[in-house]
């Protein structure tokens, strides 16, 4: 599973992307967040306030209960501020 980070989430995690292999028990975005948050102090800081972090699965915005599967591209980022 490919995980991408953007904006201050990327800065806190310390990398822009990584390949991860979460256990089978990680089935949705919320589960992935909990699992990623335990990987490093940077990850923990990035996900300290989960409501500040948005997700996309395979380049579509995704809610916390959206399923994630091996092979997915999952991205985490702050609320968008373009335009």
């Amino acid at each position: 599973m490919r995980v991408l980070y953007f904006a201050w989430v990327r800065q806190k995690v310390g990398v822009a992307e990584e390949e991860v292999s979460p256990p089978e028990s990680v089935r949705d975005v919320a589960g992935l967040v909990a699992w990623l948050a335990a990987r490093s102090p940077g990850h923990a800081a990035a996900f300290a306030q989960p409501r500040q972090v948005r997700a996309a699965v395979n380049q579509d915005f995704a809610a916390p209960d959206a399923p994630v599967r091996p092979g997915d591209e999952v991205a985490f980022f702050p609320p968008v501020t373009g335009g």
Partner: protein
Amino acid sequence: MSRAAPTIRVQAEPFDLAAESAALAAGRVDVGGLASFVGLCRADDGLAALVLEHYPGMTERAIARIAEEACARWPLTGCTVIHRHGRLEPGAPIVLVLTASAHRAAALEACAFLIDWLKTRAPFWKREEFAGGTERWVEAKAEDDLAASRWDDAAAARRGETP
């Protein structure tokens, strides 16, 4: 009325309002109104530059969906969205939205809709760089969510629902 596919570009380079505008009307005699919006970088609070980060791939996809939604809601003969990324200094244009339609209301409303939805649904993030060297990520504004949500109300109202 033939509908052109939306033109969508995500680029570091500036855009050419006149050329993009001319492209939507060129060779046509069914366009009655062309509306445009250009968002520019302001120098608020001693801002030295905005740095726009985006999510390559998803960005184009998200903008394409927003443009499709506009074309579904209004009878547009054409629609162009160009969004820049990278480092932009005060005065620099950031985003261009152009809409064409037989009638002015469709062009004007679709233009406002597109910029409202781009603000809340396109994966861009702005970092502000100040003269003193400090930096700050721009936070999403509640007023932008509110501006975007009025289009939900508008769609609901057209369907006969209570917003």
